[in-house]
Protein backbone atom coordinates (compact mmCIF):
# COMPACT_ATOMS: atom_id res chain seq x y z
CA UNK A 1 0.00 0.00 0.00
CA UNK A 2 1.22 3.51 -0.76
CA UNK A 3 1.47 6.32 1.78
CA UNK A 4 -1.08 9.07 1.75
CA UNK A 5 -4.60 9.57 3.02
CA UNK A 6 -7.54 7.25 2.75
CA UNK A 7 -10.01 9.06 0.51
CA UNK A 8 -13.75 8.65 0.91
CA UNK A 9 -15.62 9.75 -2.20
CA UNK A 10 -19.05 10.82 -1.02
CA UNK A 11 -21.82 13.30 -1.48
CA UNK A 12 -21.74 16.38 0.72
CA UNK A 13 -25.08 15.10 2.06
CA UNK A 14 -23.73 11.67 3.07
CA UNK A 15 -24.08 11.93 6.87
CA UNK A 16 -22.63 8.47 7.48
CA UNK A 17 -19.48 9.31 5.53
CA UNK A 18 -19.07 12.59 7.39
CA UNK A 19 -18.82 10.76 10.72
CA UNK A 20 -15.82 8.71 9.60
CA UNK A 21 -12.94 11.11 10.34
CA UNK A 22 -14.14 11.49 13.95
CA UNK A 23 -14.70 7.74 14.36
CA UNK A 24 -11.23 6.93 12.99
CA UNK A 25 -8.94 9.53 14.57
CA UNK A 26 -5.85 7.39 14.03
CA UNK A 27 -6.31 7.37 10.30
CA UNK A 28 -5.58 10.14 7.79
CA UNK A 29 -9.03 9.93 6.27
CA UNK A 30 -10.40 12.69 4.04
CA UNK A 31 -13.67 13.28 2.25
CA UNK A 32 -13.69 13.97 -1.47
CA UNK A 33 -16.96 15.55 -2.55
CA UNK A 34 -18.14 16.78 -5.97
CA UNK A 35 -17.34 20.34 -4.88
CA UNK A 36 -13.65 19.35 -4.85
CA UNK A 37 -13.91 18.76 -8.59
CA UNK A 38 -14.58 22.48 -9.00
CA UNK A 39 -11.31 23.48 -7.41
CA UNK A 40 -8.08 24.20 -9.28
CA UNK A 41 -5.31 21.62 -9.12
CA UNK A 42 -6.62 18.34 -10.54
CA UNK A 43 -4.22 16.69 -12.96
CA UNK A 44 -4.93 13.26 -14.42
CA UNK A 45 -2.92 11.94 -17.33
CA UNK A 46 -4.46 8.59 -18.33
CA UNK A 47 -1.85 5.89 -18.79
CA UNK A 48 0.90 8.10 -17.34
CA UNK A 49 0.84 7.15 -13.64
CA UNK A 50 0.83 9.64 -10.77
CA UNK A 51 -1.21 12.82 -10.78
CA UNK A 52 -2.77 15.37 -8.47
CA UNK A 53 -6.17 15.23 -6.79
CA UNK A 54 -7.91 17.91 -4.76
CA UNK A 55 -9.41 16.40 -1.62
CA UNK A 56 -11.21 18.38 1.03
CA UNK A 57 -9.84 21.49 -0.63
CA UNK A 58 -6.21 20.37 -0.53
CA UNK A 59 -4.06 19.13 -3.42
CA UNK A 60 -2.57 15.67 -2.84
CA UNK A 61 -0.37 13.44 -4.98
CA UNK A 62 -2.08 10.38 -6.32
CA UNK A 63 -2.51 7.54 -5.77
CA UNK A 64 -3.77 7.87 -2.19
CA UNK A 65 -3.51 4.93 0.20
CA UNK A 66 -6.99 3.72 -0.69
CA UNK A 67 -10.38 5.00 -1.83
CA UNK A 68 -13.77 4.10 -0.40
CA UNK A 69 -16.52 4.99 -2.87
CA UNK A 70 -19.89 6.09 -1.49
CA UNK A 71 -21.14 8.00 -4.52
CA UNK A 72 -23.12 6.32 -7.35
CA UNK A 73 -22.58 9.27 -9.70
CA UNK A 74 -22.42 13.04 -9.53
CA UNK A 75 -25.96 14.37 -9.52
CA UNK A 76 -27.22 17.86 -10.22
CA UNK A 77 -28.07 18.32 -6.53
CA UNK A 78 -24.40 17.74 -5.71
CA UNK A 79 -23.53 20.91 -7.63
CA UNK A 80 -25.27 23.89 -6.04
CA UNK A 81 -22.16 25.97 -6.86
CA UNK A 82 -22.69 25.46 -10.62
CA UNK A 83 -25.09 27.57 -12.68
CA UNK A 84 -28.41 25.73 -12.88
CA UNK A 85 -28.34 25.61 -16.66
CA UNK A 86 -24.94 23.90 -16.67
CA UNK A 87 -25.48 21.40 -13.84
CA UNK A 88 -26.65 18.46 -15.93
CA UNK A 89 -23.67 18.71 -18.30
CA UNK A 90 -21.14 19.29 -15.52
CA UNK A 91 -22.56 16.33 -13.56
CA UNK A 92 -22.07 14.09 -16.62
CA UNK A 93 -18.55 15.38 -17.12
CA UNK A 94 -17.57 14.86 -13.47
CA UNK A 95 -19.05 11.36 -13.43
CA UNK A 96 -17.17 10.48 -16.62
CA UNK A 97 -13.96 11.81 -15.14
CA UNK A 98 -14.39 9.88 -11.89
CA UNK A 99 -15.17 6.63 -13.75
CA UNK A 100 -11.86 6.86 -15.60
CA UNK A 101 -9.88 8.11 -12.57
CA UNK A 102 -11.16 5.47 -10.13
CA UNK A 103 -10.66 2.72 -12.72
CA UNK A 104 -7.04 3.75 -13.26
CA UNK A 105 -5.88 4.26 -9.66
CA UNK A 106 -3.23 1.68 -8.73
CA UNK A 107 -4.36 1.59 -5.07
CA UNK A 108 -7.21 -0.32 -3.37
CA UNK A 109 -10.56 1.13 -4.50
CA UNK A 110 -13.66 -0.24 -2.78
CA UNK A 111 -15.46 -0.78 -5.03
CA UNK A 112 -13.98 -0.26 -8.45
CA UNK A 113 -16.62 1.52 -10.53
CA UNK A 114 -18.89 -0.17 -13.02
CA UNK A 115 -20.04 1.62 -16.16
CA UNK A 116 -23.32 2.51 -14.46
CA UNK A 117 -22.21 3.31 -10.90
CA UNK A 118 -19.03 4.74 -9.41
CA UNK A 119 -19.41 2.47 -6.36
CA UNK A 120 -19.54 -0.80 -8.31
CA UNK A 121 -22.41 -2.95 -9.53
CA UNK A 122 -25.69 -1.11 -9.00
CA UNK A 123 -27.86 -3.42 -11.04
CA UNK A 124 -31.55 -3.83 -11.68
CA UNK A 125 -33.21 -6.55 -9.53
CA UNK A 126 -33.69 -8.80 -12.56
CA UNK A 127 -29.96 -8.96 -13.27
CA UNK A 128 -29.14 -9.73 -9.64
CA UNK A 129 -31.76 -12.51 -9.61
CA UNK A 130 -30.21 -14.17 -12.67
CA UNK A 131 -26.70 -14.04 -11.21
CA UNK A 132 -27.83 -15.16 -7.75
CA UNK A 133 -29.54 -18.19 -9.27
CA UNK A 134 -26.43 -18.93 -11.30
CA UNK A 135 -24.31 -19.24 -8.12
CA UNK A 136 -26.83 -21.61 -6.57
CA UNK A 137 -28.90 -19.31 -4.39
CA UNK A 138 -32.68 -19.67 -4.13
CA UNK A 139 -34.22 -16.49 -5.45
CA UNK A 140 -37.39 -14.59 -4.65
CA UNK A 141 -39.02 -14.05 -8.07
CA UNK A 142 -38.74 -10.55 -9.49
CA UNK A 143 -41.74 -9.14 -11.29
CA UNK A 144 -42.45 -5.72 -12.73
CA UNK A 145 -45.17 -4.31 -14.92
CA UNK A 146 -45.54 -0.97 -16.62
CA UNK A 147 -48.02 0.77 -18.85
CA UNK A 148 -51.55 -0.11 -19.91
CA UNK A 149 -54.04 -1.76 -17.54
CA UNK A 150 -51.75 -4.61 -16.67
CA UNK A 151 -50.12 -2.92 -13.71
CA UNK A 152 -49.83 -5.43 -10.92
CA UNK A 153 -49.09 -4.53 -7.31
CA UNK A 154 -45.44 -4.65 -6.39
CA UNK A 155 -44.79 -7.54 -4.01
CA UNK A 156 -44.22 -6.31 -0.49
CA UNK A 157 -40.66 -6.69 0.73
CA UNK A 158 -40.21 -8.90 3.79
CA UNK A 159 -40.50 -6.93 7.00
CA UNK A 160 -37.14 -7.94 8.38
CA UNK A 161 -34.69 -9.21 5.77
CA UNK A 162 -31.41 -10.76 6.84
CA UNK A 163 -28.46 -8.65 5.72
CA UNK A 164 -25.06 -10.15 4.92
CA UNK A 165 -22.09 -8.02 3.90
CA UNK A 166 -19.40 -9.58 1.76
CA UNK A 167 -16.00 -7.90 2.08
CA UNK A 168 -13.34 -9.67 0.04
CA UNK A 169 -13.18 -13.22 1.32
CA UNK A 170 -15.18 -12.46 4.46
CA UNK A 171 -18.90 -12.75 5.02
CA UNK A 172 -20.31 -10.61 7.84
CA UNK A 173 -23.73 -11.70 9.04
CA UNK A 174 -25.74 -14.85 9.51
CA UNK A 175 -24.69 -17.07 6.62
CA UNK A 176 -23.68 -20.74 6.89
CA UNK A 177 -20.59 -21.98 5.10
CA UNK A 178 -22.39 -22.94 1.91
CA UNK A 179 -24.36 -19.71 1.84
CA UNK A 180 -21.23 -17.65 2.52
CA UNK A 181 -19.38 -19.37 -0.27
CA UNK A 182 -22.21 -18.62 -2.71
CA UNK A 183 -22.42 -15.00 -1.64
CA UNK A 184 -18.69 -14.55 -2.07
CA UNK A 185 -18.96 -16.04 -5.55
CA UNK A 186 -21.85 -13.68 -6.29
CA UNK A 187 -19.70 -10.70 -5.30
CA UNK A 188 -16.74 -11.95 -7.33
CA UNK A 189 -18.85 -12.45 -10.46
CA UNK A 190 -20.37 -9.01 -10.00
CA UNK A 191 -16.88 -7.51 -9.76
CA UNK A 192 -17.49 -6.23 -6.23
CA UNK A 193 -15.02 -6.36 -3.36
CA UNK A 194 -17.86 -5.15 -1.14
CA UNK A 195 -21.45 -6.29 -1.54
CA UNK A 196 -24.45 -6.00 0.75
CA UNK A 197 -26.95 -8.81 0.25
CA UNK A 198 -30.50 -9.04 1.59
CA UNK A 199 -31.97 -12.49 2.17
CA UNK A 200 -35.45 -13.68 3.06
CA UNK A 201 -35.35 -16.46 5.64
CA UNK A 202 -39.11 -16.95 5.56
CA UNK A 203 -39.22 -19.53 2.78
CA UNK A 204 -39.54 -23.25 3.58
CA UNK A 205 -36.27 -23.92 1.71
CA UNK A 206 -34.26 -21.53 3.87
CA UNK A 207 -32.70 -18.24 2.88
CA UNK A 208 -33.68 -16.83 -0.50
CA UNK A 209 -31.93 -14.01 -2.33
CA UNK A 210 -33.82 -10.73 -2.30
CA UNK A 211 -31.46 -7.97 -3.37
CA UNK A 212 -27.86 -6.81 -3.50
CA UNK A 213 -26.15 -3.46 -3.55
CA UNK A 214 -22.67 -1.95 -3.29
CA UNK A 215 -23.64 0.07 -0.18
CA UNK A 216 -22.16 -1.30 3.06
CA UNK A 217 -23.54 -0.13 6.36
CA UNK A 218 -20.70 2.06 7.60
CA UNK A 219 -22.49 2.62 10.90
CA UNK A 220 -21.59 -0.99 11.74
CA UNK A 221 -18.06 -1.00 13.20
CA UNK A 222 -17.50 -4.61 12.16
CA UNK A 223 -18.26 -3.76 8.55
CA UNK A 224 -16.10 -0.64 8.67
CA UNK A 225 -13.15 -2.54 10.16
CA UNK A 226 -13.48 -5.22 7.49
CA UNK A 227 -13.55 -2.58 4.77
CA UNK A 228 -10.43 -0.86 6.05
CA UNK A 229 -8.72 -4.20 6.56
CA UNK A 230 -9.55 -5.23 3.02
CA UNK A 231 -8.10 -1.97 1.74
CA UNK A 232 -4.88 -2.69 3.65
CA UNK A 233 -5.44 0.41 5.75
CA UNK A 234 -5.72 -1.13 9.20
CA UNK A 235 -2.40 -2.93 8.91
CA UNK A 236 -0.76 0.27 7.74
CA UNK A 237 -2.29 2.29 10.57
CA UNK A 238 -1.08 -0.30 13.08
CA UNK A 239 2.43 -0.11 11.61
CA UNK A 240 2.38 3.66 11.84
CA UNK A 241 1.19 3.51 15.47
CA UNK A 242 3.86 1.01 16.49
CA UNK A 243 6.64 2.95 14.77
CA UNK A 244 5.43 6.20 16.29
Amino acid sequence: MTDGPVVVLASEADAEARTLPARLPGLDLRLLTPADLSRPGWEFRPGRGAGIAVVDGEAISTPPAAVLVRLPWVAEHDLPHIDAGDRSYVASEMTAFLLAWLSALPCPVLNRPSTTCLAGPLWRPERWAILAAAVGLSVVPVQRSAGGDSTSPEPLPPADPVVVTVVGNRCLGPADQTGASRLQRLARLAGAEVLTVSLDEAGPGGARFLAASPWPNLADDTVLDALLDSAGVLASAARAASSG
Partner: protein
Amino acid sequence: MILLWGPPTDPPLAAVFAALSRRSAPAALIDAETAACSVLLTVDPVVCGSLGVDGAEIDLAAVDGLYLRPGVPAAGSERAAVHEALWAFSEVTSAIVLNRPAAMAGNGSKPYQAAQARAVGFATPDTLITTSAEAARDFARQHREVIYKSTSGVRSVVATLDLTDDERLADLETCPTQLQERVPGVDVRVHVVGPLLFACEVRSSAVDYRYAVRDGLDVEIRSTELPPEIAARCLTLAALAELPLAGIDLRRTPDGAWYCFEINPSPGFTYYADATGQPVADAIAELLLAS
Protein backbone atom coordinates in the same frame (compact mmCIF):
# COMPACT_ATOMS: atom_id res chain seq x y z
CA MET B 1 -39.05 -12.70 -33.38
CA ILE B 2 -36.67 -9.77 -33.74
CA LEU B 3 -37.56 -6.66 -31.79
CA LEU B 4 -36.36 -3.22 -32.90
CA TRP B 5 -36.93 -0.45 -30.38
CA GLY B 6 -36.86 3.23 -31.24
CA PRO B 7 -38.37 5.78 -33.63
CA PRO B 8 -39.16 4.39 -37.13
CA THR B 9 -37.66 7.53 -38.66
CA ASP B 10 -34.24 6.70 -37.18
CA PRO B 11 -32.14 5.82 -40.28
CA PRO B 12 -30.19 2.89 -38.74
CA LEU B 13 -33.37 1.33 -37.31
CA ALA B 14 -35.22 1.81 -40.59
CA ALA B 15 -32.32 0.28 -42.54
CA VAL B 16 -32.13 -2.80 -40.31
CA PHE B 17 -35.93 -3.20 -40.36
CA ALA B 18 -35.83 -3.09 -44.17
CA ALA B 19 -33.02 -5.67 -44.22
CA LEU B 20 -35.07 -7.97 -41.98
CA SER B 21 -38.13 -7.44 -44.16
CA ARG B 22 -36.15 -8.42 -47.27
CA ARG B 23 -35.40 -11.68 -45.48
CA SER B 24 -39.08 -12.14 -44.52
CA ALA B 25 -37.90 -12.37 -40.92
CA PRO B 26 -40.50 -11.94 -38.18
CA ALA B 27 -39.69 -8.50 -36.81
CA ALA B 28 -41.45 -5.70 -35.00
CA LEU B 29 -40.32 -2.09 -34.85
CA ILE B 30 -41.63 -0.63 -31.61
CA ASP B 31 -41.70 3.08 -30.95
CA ALA B 32 -42.37 3.18 -27.23
CA GLU B 33 -42.50 6.99 -27.44
CA THR B 34 -45.72 6.98 -29.44
CA ALA B 35 -47.30 3.49 -29.27
CA ALA B 36 -49.50 2.41 -26.38
CA CYS B 37 -47.14 -0.05 -24.70
CA SER B 38 -47.29 -2.22 -21.64
CA VAL B 39 -44.71 -4.61 -20.24
CA LEU B 40 -44.99 -7.53 -17.83
CA LEU B 41 -41.60 -8.97 -16.94
CA THR B 42 -40.90 -11.87 -14.58
CA VAL B 43 -37.54 -13.38 -13.61
CA ASP B 44 -37.98 -16.61 -11.68
CA PRO B 45 -35.05 -16.97 -12.60
CA VAL B 46 -36.26 -17.88 -16.10
CA VAL B 47 -37.02 -14.68 -18.00
CA CYS B 48 -40.57 -14.44 -19.31
CA GLY B 49 -43.31 -11.89 -19.83
CA SER B 50 -45.11 -9.97 -22.49
CA LEU B 51 -44.95 -6.70 -24.37
CA GLY B 52 -48.26 -5.15 -25.37
CA VAL B 53 -48.18 -2.77 -28.32
CA ASP B 54 -51.34 -1.04 -29.54
CA GLY B 55 -53.47 -4.02 -28.48
CA ALA B 56 -51.21 -6.73 -29.88
CA GLU B 57 -49.07 -8.89 -27.59
CA ILE B 58 -45.50 -10.11 -28.04
CA ASP B 59 -44.22 -13.02 -25.95
CA LEU B 60 -40.89 -11.84 -24.54
CA ALA B 61 -39.65 -15.45 -24.30
CA ALA B 62 -40.01 -15.65 -28.10
CA VAL B 63 -37.72 -12.67 -28.72
CA ASP B 64 -34.50 -13.93 -30.35
CA GLY B 65 -32.87 -10.60 -31.09
CA LEU B 66 -33.09 -7.00 -29.91
CA TYR B 67 -31.78 -3.84 -31.57
CA LEU B 68 -32.03 -0.81 -29.28
CA ARG B 69 -32.05 2.83 -30.31
CA PRO B 70 -34.72 4.36 -28.07
CA GLY B 71 -34.97 7.98 -27.06
CA VAL B 72 -35.08 9.05 -23.42
CA PRO B 73 -38.63 9.60 -22.10
CA ALA B 74 -39.49 12.24 -19.52
CA ALA B 75 -38.58 11.11 -16.01
CA GLY B 76 -41.48 9.86 -13.94
CA SER B 77 -43.82 9.32 -16.89
CA GLU B 78 -45.64 6.07 -17.69
CA ARG B 79 -43.48 5.85 -20.80
CA ALA B 80 -40.41 6.07 -18.57
CA ALA B 81 -41.66 3.02 -16.63
CA VAL B 82 -42.14 1.11 -19.91
CA HIS B 83 -38.68 2.22 -21.02
CA GLU B 84 -37.17 1.01 -17.74
CA ALA B 85 -38.96 -2.36 -17.97
CA LEU B 86 -37.73 -2.93 -21.54
CA TRP B 87 -34.26 -1.85 -20.48
CA ALA B 88 -34.41 -4.41 -17.64
CA PHE B 89 -35.49 -7.09 -20.13
CA SER B 90 -32.60 -6.12 -22.41
CA GLU B 91 -30.14 -6.78 -19.58
CA VAL B 92 -31.33 -10.30 -18.79
CA THR B 93 -32.77 -11.88 -21.93
CA SER B 94 -30.78 -14.70 -23.50
CA ALA B 95 -31.54 -13.19 -26.92
CA ILE B 96 -28.76 -11.38 -28.76
CA VAL B 97 -28.95 -7.70 -27.80
CA LEU B 98 -27.36 -4.87 -29.78
CA ASN B 99 -26.23 -3.72 -27.32
CA ARG B 100 -26.85 -4.45 -23.66
CA PRO B 101 -27.43 -1.23 -21.67
CA ALA B 102 -24.63 -1.73 -19.13
CA ALA B 103 -22.12 -2.27 -21.95
CA MET B 104 -23.36 0.81 -23.79
CA ALA B 105 -22.86 2.88 -20.64
CA GLY B 106 -19.08 2.64 -21.06
CA ASN B 107 -19.46 5.27 -23.77
CA GLY B 108 -20.32 7.69 -20.98
CA SER B 109 -16.61 8.22 -20.29
CA LYS B 110 -14.15 8.76 -23.13
CA PRO B 111 -11.02 8.30 -20.98
CA TYR B 112 -12.49 5.06 -19.63
CA GLN B 113 -12.94 3.84 -23.20
CA ALA B 114 -9.44 5.02 -24.08
CA ALA B 115 -8.05 2.77 -21.34
CA GLN B 116 -9.83 -0.17 -23.00
CA ALA B 117 -8.34 0.84 -26.35
CA ARG B 118 -4.83 0.95 -24.87
CA ALA B 119 -5.40 -2.45 -23.26
CA VAL B 120 -5.82 -4.05 -26.70
CA GLY B 121 -2.80 -2.30 -28.18
CA PHE B 122 -4.13 0.87 -29.79
CA ALA B 123 -2.36 4.17 -29.32
CA THR B 124 -4.42 6.94 -27.75
CA PRO B 125 -3.67 10.66 -27.83
CA ASP B 126 -1.65 12.07 -24.95
CA THR B 127 -4.35 13.39 -22.64
CA LEU B 128 -4.59 15.68 -19.64
CA ILE B 129 -7.78 16.08 -17.64
CA THR B 130 -7.39 19.05 -15.38
CA THR B 131 -8.88 21.93 -13.45
CA SER B 132 -5.60 23.82 -13.62
CA ALA B 133 -5.00 26.54 -16.22
CA GLU B 134 -1.30 26.33 -15.43
CA ALA B 135 -1.22 22.56 -16.09
CA ALA B 136 -3.15 23.15 -19.32
CA ARG B 137 -0.57 25.68 -20.49
CA ASP B 138 2.30 23.28 -19.64
CA PHE B 139 0.55 20.49 -21.53
CA ALA B 140 -0.06 22.69 -24.55
CA ARG B 141 3.61 23.66 -24.65
CA GLN B 142 4.49 19.95 -24.96
CA HIS B 143 2.46 19.56 -28.15
CA ARG B 144 2.17 21.32 -31.47
CA GLU B 145 -1.61 21.60 -31.18
CA VAL B 146 -4.02 20.71 -28.38
CA ILE B 147 -7.76 20.20 -28.67
CA TYR B 148 -10.43 19.94 -25.98
CA LYS B 149 -13.62 17.92 -25.98
CA SER B 150 -16.15 16.51 -23.55
CA THR B 151 -15.01 13.81 -21.15
CA SER B 152 -18.48 12.28 -21.04
CA GLY B 153 -20.61 10.84 -23.81
CA VAL B 154 -22.41 14.17 -24.18
CA ARG B 155 -21.71 15.19 -27.75
CA SER B 156 -19.47 18.21 -28.10
CA VAL B 157 -17.68 19.92 -30.94
CA VAL B 158 -13.95 19.22 -30.79
CA ALA B 159 -12.15 22.57 -30.65
CA THR B 160 -8.57 23.79 -30.64
CA LEU B 161 -7.21 25.16 -27.36
CA ASP B 162 -6.29 28.83 -27.56
CA LEU B 163 -3.64 29.65 -24.97
CA THR B 164 -4.32 33.35 -25.31
CA ASP B 165 -7.96 32.95 -24.23
CA ASP B 166 -7.52 33.55 -20.50
CA GLU B 167 -11.25 33.64 -19.91
CA ARG B 168 -11.77 30.13 -21.34
CA LEU B 169 -8.75 28.83 -19.45
CA ALA B 170 -10.18 30.21 -16.21
CA ASP B 171 -13.30 28.11 -16.86
CA LEU B 172 -11.18 24.99 -16.36
CA GLU B 173 -11.58 25.46 -12.61
CA THR B 174 -15.27 24.66 -12.86
CA CYS B 175 -14.86 21.05 -13.87
CA PRO B 176 -12.09 18.66 -14.95
CA THR B 177 -11.69 19.21 -18.69
CA GLN B 178 -10.16 16.86 -21.22
CA LEU B 179 -7.29 18.19 -23.32
CA GLN B 180 -5.60 16.08 -25.98
CA GLU B 181 -2.70 16.42 -28.36
CA ARG B 182 -4.04 16.77 -31.88
CA VAL B 183 -3.02 13.67 -33.81
CA PRO B 184 -2.59 14.24 -37.53
CA GLY B 185 -3.78 11.68 -40.03
CA VAL B 186 -6.73 10.13 -41.78
CA ASP B 187 -9.89 9.23 -39.88
CA VAL B 188 -11.06 5.65 -40.23
CA ARG B 189 -14.48 4.57 -38.97
CA VAL B 190 -14.79 0.84 -38.37
CA HIS B 191 -18.16 -0.80 -37.83
CA VAL B 192 -17.92 -4.08 -35.97
CA VAL B 193 -20.93 -6.34 -36.52
CA GLY B 194 -20.30 -9.61 -34.68
CA PRO B 195 -17.30 -11.14 -36.47
CA LEU B 196 -17.51 -8.76 -39.45
CA LEU B 197 -15.77 -5.43 -40.00
CA PHE B 198 -16.66 -2.57 -42.33
CA ALA B 199 -14.01 0.12 -42.52
CA CYS B 200 -14.13 3.46 -44.29
CA GLU B 201 -11.78 6.41 -44.56
CA VAL B 202 -13.10 9.86 -43.84
CA ARG B 203 -11.14 12.76 -45.32
CA SER B 204 -12.03 16.29 -44.29
CA SER B 205 -10.35 19.60 -43.60
CA ALA B 206 -12.54 20.07 -40.51
CA VAL B 207 -11.16 19.50 -36.98
CA ASP B 208 -14.29 17.40 -36.32
CA TYR B 209 -15.60 15.92 -39.56
CA ARG B 210 -19.08 15.35 -38.11
CA TYR B 211 -19.59 19.09 -38.38
CA ALA B 212 -17.80 19.63 -41.71
CA VAL B 213 -20.92 20.18 -43.79
CA ARG B 214 -22.36 22.57 -41.20
CA ASP B 215 -19.16 24.58 -41.33
CA GLY B 216 -19.04 24.60 -45.14
CA LEU B 217 -16.07 22.24 -45.29
CA ASP B 218 -15.62 19.15 -47.40
CA VAL B 219 -15.96 15.52 -46.28
CA GLU B 220 -15.24 12.44 -48.34
CA ILE B 221 -16.03 8.88 -47.21
CA ARG B 222 -14.83 5.74 -48.97
CA SER B 223 -14.37 2.05 -48.13
CA THR B 224 -10.98 0.84 -47.04
CA GLU B 225 -9.26 -2.33 -45.87
CA LEU B 226 -7.64 -2.62 -42.46
CA PRO B 227 -4.26 -4.27 -41.88
CA PRO B 228 -4.92 -7.69 -40.30
CA GLU B 229 -3.48 -6.72 -36.91
CA ILE B 230 -5.66 -3.60 -36.73
CA ALA B 231 -8.73 -5.60 -37.72
CA ALA B 232 -7.93 -8.09 -34.97
CA ARG B 233 -7.56 -5.25 -32.45
CA CYS B 234 -10.97 -3.88 -33.39
CA LEU B 235 -12.60 -7.27 -32.82
CA THR B 236 -10.78 -7.67 -29.49
CA LEU B 237 -11.78 -4.17 -28.40
CA ALA B 238 -15.46 -4.75 -29.23
CA ALA B 239 -15.33 -8.03 -27.32
CA LEU B 240 -13.65 -6.37 -24.31
CA ALA B 241 -16.32 -3.67 -24.29
CA GLU B 242 -19.01 -6.37 -24.69
CA LEU B 243 -20.34 -4.63 -27.79
CA PRO B 244 -21.23 -7.01 -30.64
CA LEU B 245 -22.16 -3.89 -32.61
CA ALA B 246 -19.74 -0.97 -32.40
CA GLY B 247 -18.52 2.02 -34.35
CA ILE B 248 -14.82 2.48 -33.61
CA ASP B 249 -13.16 5.79 -34.45
CA LEU B 250 -9.52 5.38 -35.50
CA ARG B 251 -6.93 7.66 -37.02
CA ARG B 252 -3.98 6.46 -39.12
CA THR B 253 -1.05 8.82 -38.79
CA PRO B 254 1.38 9.63 -41.62
CA ASP B 255 3.99 7.42 -39.94
CA GLY B 256 1.61 4.45 -39.82
CA ALA B 257 0.50 4.48 -36.17
CA TRP B 258 -3.13 3.68 -35.37
CA TYR B 259 -4.87 5.78 -32.73
CA CYS B 260 -8.26 4.96 -31.23
CA PHE B 261 -10.55 7.78 -30.10
CA GLU B 262 -13.91 6.29 -29.25
CA ILE B 263 -16.09 3.20 -29.32
CA ASN B 264 -19.64 4.15 -30.23
CA PRO B 265 -22.08 1.55 -28.86
CA SER B 266 -25.00 2.77 -30.96
CA PRO B 267 -23.38 3.81 -34.22
CA GLY B 268 -25.22 5.88 -36.79
CA PHE B 269 -23.78 3.62 -39.47
CA THR B 270 -26.07 4.80 -42.27
CA TYR B 271 -24.11 8.06 -42.56
CA TYR B 272 -21.12 5.99 -43.70
CA ALA B 273 -22.95 3.12 -45.43
CA ASP B 274 -24.95 5.52 -47.61
CA ALA B 275 -21.66 6.93 -48.91
CA THR B 276 -19.83 3.62 -49.36
CA GLY B 277 -22.56 1.11 -50.13
CA GLN B 278 -21.26 -1.16 -47.37
CA PRO B 279 -23.97 -3.68 -46.37
CA VAL B 280 -23.85 -2.88 -42.65
CA ALA B 281 -27.63 -3.09 -42.17
CA ASP B 282 -27.71 -6.52 -43.79
CA ALA B 283 -24.90 -7.69 -41.53
CA ILE B 284 -26.79 -6.46 -38.46
CA ALA B 285 -29.93 -8.24 -39.66
CA GLU B 286 -27.96 -11.46 -40.13
CA LEU B 287 -26.40 -11.10 -36.67
CA LEU B 288 -29.83 -10.63 -35.09
CA LEU B 289 -31.13 -13.69 -36.94
CA ALA B 290 -28.09 -15.84 -36.10
CA SER B 291 -29.44 -16.59 -32.64
